[in-house]
């Protein structure tokens, strides 16, 4: 069986601390480290579990990004993936989710559609959760999103999904696209032996030409959405009434709110 894991390198937006903010209150992106998108780690783990249960499975990592994103492919291999590709080309730059999914789906067609394409539910920078379903549509494959557990059952997958109001178990034929949420089991750590062996391995690179892509559908020119404006969040201080924890203070606050008919 063949599995392709979609993984993205992202700035670590979870830790936008004081040092990551400039004096004007904007984000200093260069102060944020680049990490393996968290949900994609959960996706990798599901792929590796399938490989544990079916040892003849081949797990590959596919990422699109600048040259340094090859770290993602290596990280995947340190943890148990067999190989990987970096999709990199200036023409891919500035992609929205439609152009991103076009590039990923076109590369997958070129590489051969595997039994399972598995990715994270959402990336922590763009935060859209759109790429998985769009890759599925472009390959005309069924999709299952918000997966927490993926099991192979003959030629179908049995998947537990985390939905708004509870859980759902679905069955989907392969080939298919699955996206995994952050509440799925965490990824296993690096394997020391593999880390030594693959430290300097060559990561295969693919350009628009290599995947027979249509330039018009890649990057900025293939992106219908345009960012018109970006505003950093700066909180404006309101007029604050400061109170102590004395009974008096609290009593007068409650009375004030009651008199104004607020409570």
């Amino acid at each position, binding site marked *: 069986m063949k599995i392709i894991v979609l993984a993205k390198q992202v700035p670590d937006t979870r830790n936008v601390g004081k040092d990551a903010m400039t004096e004007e209150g904007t984000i200093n992106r260069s102060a944020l480290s680049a990490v393996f998108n968290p949900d994609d780690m959960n996706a990798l783990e599901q792929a590796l579990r399938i490989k544990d249960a079916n040892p003849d499975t081949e797990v590959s990592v596919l990422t699109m990004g600048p040259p340094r994103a090859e770290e993602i492919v290596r990280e995947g291999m340190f943890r148990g993936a067999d190989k990987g590709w970096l999709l990199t080309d200036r023409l891919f730059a500035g992609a929205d989710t439609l152009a991103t*999914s076009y590039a990923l789906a076109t590369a997958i067609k070129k590489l051969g559609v595997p039994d399972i394409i598995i990715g994270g539910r959402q990336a922590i920078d*763009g935060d859209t959760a759109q790429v998985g379903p769009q890759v599925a549509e472009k390959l005309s494959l069924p999709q299952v999103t918000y997966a927490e557990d993926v099991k192979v059952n003959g030629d179908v997958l049995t998947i537990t999904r985390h939905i708004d109001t509870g859980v759902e178990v*679905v069955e989907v034929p392969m080939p298919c696209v699955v996206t995994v949420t952050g509440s799925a089991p965490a990824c296993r750590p690096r394997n020391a032996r593999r880390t030594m062996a693959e430290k300097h391995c060559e990561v295969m690179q693919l350009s628009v030409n290599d995947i027979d892509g249509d330039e018009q559908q890649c990057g900025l020119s293939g992106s219908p959405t345009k*960012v018109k404006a970006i505003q950093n969040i700066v909180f404006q201080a309101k007029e604050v009434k400061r109170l102590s924890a004395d009974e008096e203070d609290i009593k007068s606050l409650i009375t004030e709110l009651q008199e104004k008919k*607020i409570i």
Partner: protein
Amino acid sequence: MNNIFVYCEIDGIDVSEVSFELLSKGRQLADTLGCELEAVVAGSGIKDYVERQILPFGVDVLHVFDAECLAPYTTLPHAEVLINLFRQEKPQVCLMGATVMGRDLGPRVSSALKSGLTADCTALEIGPHDDRKSGRHYENLLYQIRPAFGGNIIATIVNPDNRPQMATVRPGVMRKAEGDMSREDAKVVYHDVAEYVSPEACVVKVLKREVKKNGNNLGGAQVIVAGGFGVGSKENFEMLHTLAEMLHGEVGASRAAVDAGFCEHDRQIGQTGVTVHPKVYIACGISGQIQHIAGMQDSSIIISVNTDEEAPINAIADYVITGSVEDVLPKMMAALK
């Protein structure tokens, strides 16, 4: 043609709250743009139930798709309904909830139509746009305003050339309109589902679905007593429940409090939880990280109870009580009695 379409999400035969919120917003946008508001609903056994729920929001045309293959929800049949309907009707705008369902369905539909899709919007406006690259000027575009970058920025996104302009909108941020705005000449169209959905679309089978009815009404609460990690324990959280009861309100929580097991997950407020806008928000032992504030900053009055005088939440609070939860809450309850 070129109208505003709202995809109405349903649970059984009940239209979900977020759809009412979107219909209300959709009506306003349609009035601004001088076009009609159309709604789409797909499910099984829904005819004669959904019409009276949806039409009061001022819908001009309601499209009903009723067939067994449309419930329980799976992606492909619903996607085919929208893709084929939109190819005929050519909407200028399509809105759906940024729920598990909407975020599963929206991208599939937008990919097939090669239209743009903006995720998880918290505001929608209409305005002009000048494209710097092409030098073209556009009127009446939908400004799709959304947090991104982990909630640290707000981006305004436009979709100048492709139609429909599609957006998913977070539940709880648009206000549901009150009163009956039914249109006298409203039309309901019952479509033949077989003309839209191919038999091959029904490949995903739902084997089991365990649904918990949401026990709380955070979205509509007038008073919310919310607790954070600073509350310290599940036992201390009981105090919040008592205070909320006295104020006829609901209890909410920060993610740190949920992660620590002080409170159930469905009470989490913030970017990855519920968005609320009560009249009074009492934040107890909550530091006020950006992801939490994203879900409660529109509260009319914010009261912060925190041992740290410099807690970030104090910057957006109207009243700051410097003290511990254990000390302050009993005093509040005593004052209320």
